[in-house]
Structure formats: structure tokens, C-alpha cells
């Protein structure tokens, strides 16, 4: 499983990549593998204010519907419309293909997210259960 070091991770299998005062949001390699073929992405609404852990988007595989939760609070600045026509990009490279960009309003929220090492350990534990 691929888990880049420079990202923050959630228990719901989202990642964010912080660049100055904004954050790219996507789903992890573990998430895309376990979902299987992703066939539909419902993107977040642009310009809305979201709270940490609020359901903001949906990813559907052939079999399953999964919610995407905001890893941090902020405003949706941008959505990746490419995914509407090519949802499979999330399977092909989940870290190169973000779902949205959120403004980073409160740095302290990052403390609640996991590092790559912690996330790997978290997934290993899930697989054992």
C-alpha cells in the first residue's frame, strides 16, 4: 500500500495535502483498493463552508456507496471536475487526483489527523480485524 509521507490522514481514509492556507483533499490507496472499481463521484458543492467530519461528497464503486468527510473545517475553494467523467482516476492514482481543495482556516485541526506512519498502523489493525 502506498502512503506518502507528506500528507495527513483520517480514520475515514481521506488524505489532505497542505499548501500554505489551503488543503488538497482525496481518498487513500487503502480506500480505493477496498472500494474496488470507482464508477461515480459526487463532488462537494463549491464555495460552501464545511465542518470537520461533515459528509461533503460521495464515491461509488460498482457495489458500494461511500461518503467522503471533510478532514478539516473550511470553505470548498475548488472541485476536481475531471472526476465526473473519469471517476476511475481515483483507482489509478488516488494521490495525484484530488477531489477538492478546502481552505485551511484553523491549523490546530491538523493535530487531530494521522501521520503516514500512524495511518499505516491503523490500516494494518483494520485488516487484522
Amino acid at each position, binding site marked *: 500500500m502506498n502512503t506518502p509521507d507528506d500528507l495527513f490522514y483520517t480514520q475515514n481514509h481521506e488524505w489532505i495535502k497542505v499548501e500554505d492556507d489551503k488543503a488538497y483533499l482525496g481518498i487513500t490507496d487503502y480506500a480505493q483498493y477496498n472500494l474496488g*472499481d470507482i464508477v*461515480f463521484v459526487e463532488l462537494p458543492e463549491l464555495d460552501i463552508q464545511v465542518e470537520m467530519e461533515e459528509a461533503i461528497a*460521495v464515491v461509488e464503486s460498482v457495489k458500494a456507496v461511500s461518503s467522503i468527510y471533510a478532514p478539516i473545517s473550511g470553505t470548498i475553494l475548488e472541485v476536481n471536475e475531471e472526476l465526473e467523467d473519469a471517476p476511475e482516476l481515483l483507482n489509478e492514482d488516488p494521490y495525484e487526483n484530488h477531489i477538492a481543495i478546502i481552505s485551511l482556516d484553523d491549523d490546530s485541526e491538523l493535530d487531530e489527523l494521522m501521520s503516514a506512519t500512524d495511518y499505516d498502523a491503523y490500516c494494518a489493525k483494520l485488516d487484522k480485524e
Partner: protein
Amino acid sequence: MSLKKTPLYDVHLKYKGKIVDYGGWELPVQYEGIKKEHNMVREKAGLFDVSHMGEIEVTGENASQFLQYLLTNDISKMSDNQIIYSFMCYPHGGVVDDLLVYKYSNTHYLLVVNAANVDKDREWLEDNLIEGVEIKNLSDDYALIAIQGPLAEDILQKTTTADLQAIKPFTFNQAVNIAGKNCLVSRTGYTGEDGFEIYLAPDDAILVWEDIMQKGGEDIKPAGLGARDSLRLEAKLPLYGQEITADITPLEAKLGFAVKLDKDDFIGKAVLLKQKENNIARTLVEFEMIGKGIPRSQYEVAKDGEIIGLVTSGLLAPTLQKNLGLALIKKEFDKVGEPIEIIIRGKSVNARIVENSFYNRKKN
């Protein structure tokens, strides 16, 4: 309760199957990916482990009479080595199970039933048992492998000297030697493609599976439960628990072809006859999404703000590349072209009722 493993469990691990808990069975939902496996079955061939399916043997001098009373289809017209699809109904017309009846002779039948319903079916059969009939649950005595796809016959023929062409749709040969093992082979399946189902002793399953994989070479891949579901739904084959349940009758699901109301009395006949004569309140319809979204089981169906039914199954059909679904709705709206709405996560998304838009290999 611990999960049950089929005799092919080690093979699933070898082919890197992603194992899930499927009604108490550890089975692969996929190997390389559902879409890939789906397409492989439509274009070449796929191999499925369906050993979780139940097999119940019905024997005895009154076996034919017994099944004729418990099942909705007409058993009396069956030849030896023929198979029919039938429902077993409750007196109120709801479905105990849908199943295949394999006829060896007038005194010997095998019912192939849904895995989750084996115990319920056996109890129902026993509750209604008559003299001169014996019921045996043989589910643990059989492994079941399905080879499905346009190349299924060519590939399977490489494994046996038995003439597979002679096995016509919905018939079987119980003495087919594959890789030195005796198998019952029927021309049946659950994918909308040509293909065979192979019943054999659990201990022989791995050897036969591997022989088919080897003879098939590049033309065959293992396929998991995910593709099994997308293939069956795309071909509009009903699934027990979704299109038909204890609360949905075969006539509501428009599966009257397997309900013979002109035969002698059978369980459920009175209610089904009434449904046929007096019309029914709700029916199963095909629909296609117009707006964006994939319809899923249990989503609500609306018309001008009023709820008129529920989606029973839906998917983004991999071969047809359309968002298709089946829904049980109020009969008055059952008109081809009728605009309806599917409620997806609280939002109303446009759809319309269609017909003959699911996969049909003869037509497509």
C-alpha cells in the same frame, strides 16, 4: 458463528481474491476488479465458485406430486435430465425461494436453492411433507463451479470427452468426466451468457477448477461475487431478497412465466390467481436514469413529490454503460416512457420507465 469456507477457498487466495463475508461464507467479491471480470464474462469466459448454493434432494414414489404442489412451475411436463426455474410460494403468494429443479426421474429430483435460504427451504419442505417423499440436504456434499461466457463451451470441451453440445440449455448430464473426476454438468447460469454449472465432490473441486483454468489459458479468468451480481442484474435476472421476497409475489415481479396457474392446486395458487384476475397494486418496472446518479436498492421512487415505490436493484451497467434499475412501483405509473424520480441522498433525480433495455445476448 464462524464463517464457512468453500472447498475452493485456497484457490481464491492463490488468485488474490478479495475475501468478504457473504451471508456467512468467506467468498471472493473480486479478484482483479469487478468491471474487468464482468467484461471478461461478456467477451470470453469467467470461472465462478458458487459452492455456497444449496442442494436439496427430493426422492420417493410421490416426489413428483409433492413438488407439483409446492412449486409454481409445472413439474409434470419435465423430461428426465431437464431443469426448470420455479418459485416456491407461501399461501399468501410471497416467495419462500426461487430455485432450479433438476429432474433425474419421476422419483428423484435435486433442488438448487439460494445459500441464505437452505435451512428455511428445508423446513418449509419438511412442514409440508407427504408420505412417500424423502428430503435430504446435500449442500455440503457438492462443490459448484460455474463457467460462463461465449467461450465457455470451447474451453470446457477441452477438459472432457463428453459431448457438451448435446447438453442443451436447461438440461444436464450427470456423468461428465472432467480431469478424471465425475461431474454433473448443466447448461445453466446467472450471467445472461451461455455457460455451464458443474456439480462435483468437494474434494475434486480444486483439481477441476485448475484444469479448466489451465485449458482456458488467456481466455478465462476467475470472477467473483461482485461481477456475478452486476452480470445478473444487467441481464435482468431477479435476485431473491431484492426483486422477489416473502412480501413480493412472482406476478408483481412480472415473472409469471414460471407460475402455471392452469395446473392443479399448488401453494399460493388462490392468491396468485386473484392477483392475475383483479390486477395487482404494484409491479416491477425497468427504469433508466436521465439525471446523474446510480440507483441503488431501497432508494425511494417518486412522482410529482409523492412516493410511489422502491428501487429493488440498480447499477451503472458495465456493458451497456447506462444507469439502470428495477423498481417496484404503484401499477398506475407502469407505462413505458413515464417520467419518474429516484430519491438519491435526499435529492430528486430524473429517470424514466423503459422496457427491453437490459442486456440480452441475442439482441445486443
